[in-house]
């Protein structure tokens, strides 16, 4: 179990040029726990602090206060992140096999072992072996994001945080990526955090949803409960927005012109 306690992150803010100094509390006293094999959705609108929290959960930035601990283990948490835009997170000069193997190189895994594990993880993320020699620009958006996922899971981390991993992808490809994350979370026993502004997307794959608003978690619960009877105003707003979108496509009767 990964436990985050009383996480707060304060950024200095400078508006305009040398003026109106202040600070912004991006994450404000968040505590949560994620089990191995669990997929947790952190949802919220832009600016709610979900990306900052995600970066803290995977040790990409230090919290101002609070801590992340791995229960019943006296080692450091191993964490990986999957970013929005695989075009930016993958080096354009490296082949797929080297991109995926990189975390193992850093961990000094012997070469023979690396090759075997790369092929294994490529199979797991449903990338054809024939793509191993390609460069990122030769792949589709969905394939690039699968490479990013493969990189994230190959070193058997404790937790993977996927921050809006589908926002640059076509909707028909997006569903496949979030489903892949769910499968990996189950099969690898990974704690997986999906950060999304879309409650419907998170609800389609997550075991549990935490709703963020202004740096705080205002509500946590199973997806069906959040979607049927959201308690907080923010969850209500997010569910209503998804409902507006959905009902626009469900309309059967022609509108009167």
């Amino acid at each position: 179990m990964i436990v985050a306690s009383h996480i707060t992150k304060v950024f200095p803010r400078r508006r305009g040029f040398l003026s109106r100094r202040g600070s912004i509390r991006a994450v404000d006293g968040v505590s949560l726990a994620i089990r191995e094999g669990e997929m947790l959705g952190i949802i919220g609108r832009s600016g709610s602090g979900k990306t900052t929290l995600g970066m803290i959960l995977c040790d990409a930035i230090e919290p101002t206060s609070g801590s992340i601990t791995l229960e019943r283990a006296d080692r450091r948490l191993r964490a990986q992140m999957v970013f929005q835009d695989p075009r930016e997170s993958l080096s354009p000069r490296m082949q797929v096999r080297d991109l995926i193997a990189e975390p193992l190189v850093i961990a000094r895994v012997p070469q023979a072992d690396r090759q075997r594990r790369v092929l294994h993880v490529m199979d797991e993320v449903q990338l054809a072996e024939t793509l191993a020699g390609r460069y990122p620009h030769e792949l589709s958006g969905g394939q690039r994001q699968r490479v990013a996922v493969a990189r994230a899971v190959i070193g058997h981390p404790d937790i993977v945080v996927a921050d809006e991993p589908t926002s640059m992808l076509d909707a028909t490809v997006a569903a496949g990526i979030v489903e892949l994350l769910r499968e990996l979370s189950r099969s690898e026993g990974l704690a997986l955090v999906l950060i999304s502004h879309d409650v419907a997307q998170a609800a389609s794959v997550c075991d549990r949803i935490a709703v963020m608003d202004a740096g705080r978690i205002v509500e946590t619960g199973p997806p069906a409960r959040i979607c049927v009877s959201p308690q907080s105003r923010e969850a209500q707003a997010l569910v209503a927005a998804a409902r507006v979108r959905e009902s626009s496509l469900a309309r059967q009767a022609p509108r009167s012109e």
Partner: protein
Amino acid sequence: MADRAHAPLLAVSSLSVAYGDAGEPAVRGVSFTLPTGGALGIAGESGAGKSTLALAILGLLPPTARCDGSIRIAGDEILGEPAAVRRLRWRTVAIVFQDAMSAFNPVVTVGEQIAEAWVVHEGATWRQAMGRAAELLDRVGLEPALVHSYPHELSGGMRQRAAIAMAIALAPPLVIVDEPTSALDVLTGNAIAELLRTIRRQEGTALLLISHDVSVIARTCDSAAIMSDGAIVEQGPAHSVLSAPQHPYTRRLIDAVPRLPVPLGGPPP
């Protein structure tokens, strides 16, 4: 010239566009018309040719692009007529780009960038024009005081509103909107869709809305065309295309929109 008076605002016929000599066409044999005050949504996934189509209508294709067919705006042929397009741009046809940040000059205030339209095209004074910019911001749901802000000081949704204000400044009869919601969260995206509906209603602006999100098209447009691999596979009234699609590709696009795990009209709140 009687024809021209009755010509549709935008008429694209048998348009094909290919990049380079050997390139596969990005747009193949596309035809549609958009009447004055109408709204047509073009849906499709990346690589479908939607953006190439928009650039062709704006006369912004690179010189290496080879075009065939016809694009008429208010009866005037603009394909291969760069001078004609320049005359029409902003006054007759304006665009709101997907990434509002890159559409703005980062070192000029939002108000000045909007006001420039009236100064350049109508000979207004900066003082008058800034006053009108503040009014226009109010009309698109922004604080008038934001005329003094720089683009980076606005949120993504605010920038998209400001970009819409800039596009409608000269009251063009046609506005092309390219992926207006794809960089925004669901709540902000809904608000922008609502704003586009309001602008249609209040200003009578015709919209050509390009989006991979069929739900935005369902909410803002009266007709829809579905593009795949450079061609339109299905087009017609938005409500029939999007609620009773005939083409399997249209069905896939609609099915890909994430649904809540509860049926609409399910358990009461």
